[in-house]
């Protein structure tokens, strides 16, 4: 059974209490209606349940979240999945800045565009690998200081004058991998990363997440299958290892 919460007129704390209570009661599907910029939705929530958001969630959606799955019928604002640990967030629209900041597990699928500093500081450990798929394009500093995880940018629906990523893509990156569809201007890349040949295992990985993406947003896998991808990886795990005077 699904339970509904009407967010109309509620501040984030009041709304958060209702959502936490529903989660604590063991509800498996929670529908949030009239969401209008309330921050911190599902922040720190643990468990295995589904949240459906109607409206526009505010900043820090799913921050520190550990387990639940969220579907947003629209856009999300800044800090989506900030320091998220596990779970899945699907945004049927675009997101603001710093989506996936320091995310260390779970998945974030964005149908549209993402703002500045998307996926910065993502980290991975063992088999916990965060995945961030962006259907459109992103702003500057994509994957800055990235230490692990997977970022996929598809650039769907771009105008001819648009660039798929902004400047300083992968600056300070020292772990993880990015897959960018089509061509990327070399001057967009930070000096700590390089573009390398795609391998068989990369295609297998891409296919897995793109199938998911297409299923969530009704896209055709053909468009993507027929495209070329660039794989961006860091030169090494120690970008600043030689910056200092040895004792």
């Amino acid at each position, binding site marked *: 059974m699904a339970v509904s919460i009407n967010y109309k007129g509620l501040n984030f704390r009041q709304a958060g209490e209702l959502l936490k209570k529903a989660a604590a009661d063991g509800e498996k599907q929670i529908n949030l209606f009239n969401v209008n910029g309330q921050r911190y939705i599902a922040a720190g929530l643990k468990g295995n349940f589904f949240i459906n958001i109607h409206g526009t969630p505010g900043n820090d959606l799913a921050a*520190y979240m550990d387990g639940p799955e969220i579907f947003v019928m629209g856009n999300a604002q800044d800090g989506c999945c900030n320091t998220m640990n596990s779970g899945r967030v699907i945004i049927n629209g675009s997101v603001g800045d710093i989506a996936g900041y320091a995310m260390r597990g779970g998945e974030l699928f964005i149908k549209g565009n993402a703002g500045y500093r998307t996926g910065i500081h993502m980290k991975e450990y063992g088999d*916990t690998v965060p995945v961030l798929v962006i259907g459109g394009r992103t702003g500057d500093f994509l994957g800055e200081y990235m230490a692990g995880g997977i970022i996929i940018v598809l650039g769907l629906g771009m105008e001819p004058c648009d660039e798929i990523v902004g400047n300083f893509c992968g600056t300070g990156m*020292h772990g993880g991998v990015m897959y960018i569809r089509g061509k990327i201007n070399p001057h967009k890349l930070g000096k700590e990363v390089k573009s390398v040949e795609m391998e068989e295992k990369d295609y297998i990985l891409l296919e897995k997440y793109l199938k998911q993406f297409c299923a969530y947003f009704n896209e055709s896998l053909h468009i993507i299958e027929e495209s070329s991808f660039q794989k961006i990886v860091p030169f090494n795990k120690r970008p600043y290892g030689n910056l200092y005077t040895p004792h």
Partner: protein
Amino acid sequence: MALSFKMPEFLIKRQVETCSKCLLCVKQCANKVHYYDEKNDSFLTADENCVGCHRCAVICPTRSIYILKYPLEFRRNAYWTEETIKQIYKQAESGGILLAGTGTDRDYPIYWDKILINASQVTNPSIDPLREPMELKTFLGRRPKAITVEGKEIKEEIPPKLELEVPIMFAAMSFGAISLNAVKSLAKAAQKKGTYYNTGEGGLHRDLYQYGSNTTVQVASGRFGVHPDYLNAGAAIEIKIGQGAKPGIGGHLPGEKVGEEVSKTRMIPLGSDAISPAPHHDIYSIEDLRQLIFSLKEATDYKKPVGVKIAAVHNIAAIASGIARAGADFIVIDGFRGGTGAAPQRTRDNVGIPIELALAAVDSRLRDESIRNEVSLVVSGGIRNSADVIKAIALGADAVYIGTAALIALGCHMCQKCYTGKCNWGIATQDPQLTKRLDPEIGAQRAANLIKAWKHEIKDMLGGMGINAIESLRGNRLMLRGIGLTDTELKILGIKAAGE
């Protein structure tokens, strides 16, 4: 290879008559200073490797090792000092940024030592803490502006508090910067003495969850090891914006220090650099800080105080006011003498302001704005003894953090080479051969002893002032007088000159 100009800083002398040739010095020195030449049955030293940590001298059973300043006189020059020249040699060889460990060692004024404490004579009685109760208990956290009592209930929501038996906590030092045994020592000592230690930004090792009720967990820009269990494991959360030793810059834990356990705790791959950038990229304003504070409160159901740590910089008073208004439960101000495992030397030695002045400025500003009572103030950055604690509290602090003093209690000898990872005392290292030298039980006892001793001294001095509760000393600047200070300094400190 070109000739290196690097010369030793220390000269090792061995008293051959008393040396028992036990070879402990050879085995224990991680810097490889001592060698034993079997063929000639004699000892050799590589003086240039010696950092002056005293490990060999202290463990030598026959006290046969002397460590002297290396006799290499530079022509006297008040401007181009020996230190300046040597640093240029180093950089000309490496092309790298100079690193330094611990707080700055430069000869800046120490305001603590220019402040004198009052005592009662005749007109108000002093109190003997041995026979009369003396209250040091301190609560940290936000307080409502006013409370209304209806029946027997307080109407306002009372925000969560930290309860300290003594107004001294162990400062943030990450597992990574220091060894697990060092963190365990502090955690156990905090538990014994009813206070708190701080994880730093290294995450929380699984062995440390048991000390949760005495733990403050830190959230810094790298967000290492931050997840819901971590946030909920501690008694409080501290957002680290800056650090006194290196205001305005981030931190790099070099990949060599990211071994199995550190990797697991920080949740990053083995051997990868752990990079904390200078800013939190989700904080560009006081409003953004408010957002991080409240996202943490939401994630922990408003059950934990959330503090913000900043370095003491020029505009500290205005910044602290903003932080108080952003909703922080406590503000930590780290002065320019604050310690570090590694900082660029130029930053460590030149950036920031003294904690004494920063504290006084912040306390005054928050009072002027009538918000001082709403937020707690914790200061750190070079608190050396109980008198510094008393002076800090009289200047307006609710509590202090000690970092360097706590490590010295564990055995640190202030060689300032924490960043090399070769700490012979098992503190600032992850090498299992070295870390096992620090027994957490003994370490905890030593750190707890330090707190115990300071507690007695604080009570003594409080009693001398005729005060029987630390609360009555808080911000009580009439208990302080300045000596050898300029009018401006006295004005900032808000204290009178001695004799006034």
